[in-house]
């Protein structure tokens, strides 16, 4: 694309083209590239809009049938029963329990990994561990779900036999599995945040006679805190949206509100994932319910992601 420019400056002996300020070629390629890039941008905006509209239309239909008050206050979730009840709380609690157990696992393990990788690991160890973590991030969630169902749940029953286990499903174990699933995400984003703390800050602390633990906990970690929080928020929104693991390991549960981690409790995603099969009739209330739950889920993850974006942005400004 710099062809015209080169013609003018090159070649002492070559016949010199007339100097002009006008474009020497129409530069069609550039315009084509520009147009196709713009088309891609427009397309992604259109697709997002289409998703939102396709979510919202049945959701509006749903709230014509069911009052938003019942949806948000009732504690029984039985939309397909003969006498249906549409209180969304039981499955919201299921989702929140998954998030809770996931974070209990992912925050300590993920942050410990990040601190180790960024501050303690030698370059060689880091060169091995970091790619392994990235591979773990790509494990199909259905595999994690099976791992939870066939391995983690029996293991938990053996380790904690005094708990009132019932049946093969457990929301607590599902949450732990989701936590393991998001460890790579949390640790890799936190690791990046900690590594982008300027070396000068570390040196400044070492020069004051601080040891490594103190440099890490009192200087590097606080300086990276908004990045670390952003990592946790991203992990949270991933846990909220996780479907396959909870569908396999937490199953479909009691329609009544429950906080027992040893029980199988349905989450919002598991409800949608379990219902949205080919045999569901369009326009029925059950069909609309899926979309109402989907909209609520969308609002939850959207607000988490917006929070994360704000934190990341703040984090960028810290050292200016």
């Amino acid at each position: 694309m710099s062809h015209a420019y080169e013609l003018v400056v090159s070649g002492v002996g070559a016949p010199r083209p007339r100097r002009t300020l006008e474009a020497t070629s129409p530069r069609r390629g550039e315009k084509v590239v520009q147009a196709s890039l713009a088309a891609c941008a427009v397309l992604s905006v259109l697709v997002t809009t289409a998703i939102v509209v396709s979510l919202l239309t049945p959701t509006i239909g749903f709230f014509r049938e069911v009052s938003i008050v019942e949806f948000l206050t009732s504690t029984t979730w039985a939309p397909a029963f003969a006498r249906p009840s549409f209180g969304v709380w039981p499955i919201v609690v299921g989702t929140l329990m998954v998030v809770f157990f996931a974070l209990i696992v992912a925050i300590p393990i993920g942050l410990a990994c990040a601190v180790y990788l960024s501050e303690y690991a030698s370059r060689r160890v880091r060169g091995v561990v970091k790619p392994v973590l990235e591979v773990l991030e790509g494990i199909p969630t259905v595999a994690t779900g099976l791992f939870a169902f066939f391995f983690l749940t029996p293991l938990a029953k053996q380790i904690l036999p005094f708990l009132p286990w019932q049946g093969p499903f457990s929301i607590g174990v599902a949450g732990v599995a989701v936590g393991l699933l998001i460890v790579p995400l949390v640790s890799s984003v936190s690791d990046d945040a900690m590594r982008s703390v300027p070396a000068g800050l570390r040196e400044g602390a070492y020069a004051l006679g601080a040891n490594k633990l103190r440099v890490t906990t009192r200087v590097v970690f606080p300086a990276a805190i908004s990045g670390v929080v952003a990592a946790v928020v991203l992990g949270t929104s991933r846990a909220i949206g996780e479907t396959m693991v909870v569908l396999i390991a937490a199953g479909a549960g009691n329609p009544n509100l429950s906080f027992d981690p040893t029980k199988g409790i349905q989450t919002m995603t598991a409800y949608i994932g379990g219902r949205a099969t080919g045999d569901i009739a369009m326009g029925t209330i059950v069909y609309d319910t899926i979309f109402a739950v989907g909209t609520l889920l969308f609002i939850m993850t959207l607000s988490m992601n917006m929070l994360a974006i704000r934190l990341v942005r703040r984090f960028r400004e810290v050292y200016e």
Partner: protein
Amino acid sequence: MPSRQTTNETLSSTDRRVAALAPGPPVNIATGQAADPGAGEREVTFRLEGVSVRYGEALAVKDVTMDIHHKDITALIGPSGCGKSTLLRCLNRMNDLIPSARVSGRLWYHGEDVYGPKVDPVQVRKLIGMVFQKPNPFPKSIYDNVAFGPRTTGMKGDMDEIVERALRSAALWDEVKDRLKENAYGMSGGQQQRLCIARCIATEPDVILMDEPCSALDPISTARIEDLMHELKEQYTIVIVTHNMQQAARVSDRTAFFTAEVDEATDVRTGVLVEYDRTEKVFSNPGDERTENYVTGRFG
């Protein structure tokens, strides 16, 4: 502030006391002359004997022998890349943080081997503080910046007093006394650098190392820091790297001039000590042609 009884400090984390070895002045083997003619006048804080530093295979500093004296300001000057920072960072073992760096030769601090097997680098850095080229305050409040070192070393006493005393010593108290809780990043570059000096002073070190502390600052801030150095000299031994010859001439008692020898085969630049003497001597009557060319600006 009670003055520090330097000879009672030890670099080991254990409470081992080492008698000052106090060897005679080192002699330049090539010329047979004392490497530092002024040696013996004052207590020696650092004695370097054939100190070399490598980064991996590359020799960055070769065979430096010199004495650094108690409560002197010693300036290290020379063209960039001649190993001034590298040598400075040997003195408080900051080079330990660079995996490829290797130090050889002997380096004594009040008679104690800085690289001895029982020496704890963390302890070294408590006694030998450092101010860096780019001001590097922590993204914390002004107060917390100054209190960081004393908290780290578990210093006894009223923290407010410690912080105030350090800020006063760094000639910063009047400017910041009303905003101690504000983030240090709201300060000007010159203030930030004085905060870094205050932060360093707060741990009551014996020596302050400064690596081009004014190179990122405007002339007014530079002048303030130079004034400050004159005051700090009463209490501390200061070693300053500067590429500003006027600054070396203005502030220092002794000047060491380094130059880089380039190995044609490998293109590695190796720093060597050319001349080390009283600052007036180095600037008015240098003993080496390379020094003369450099200090008169004819370096090329």
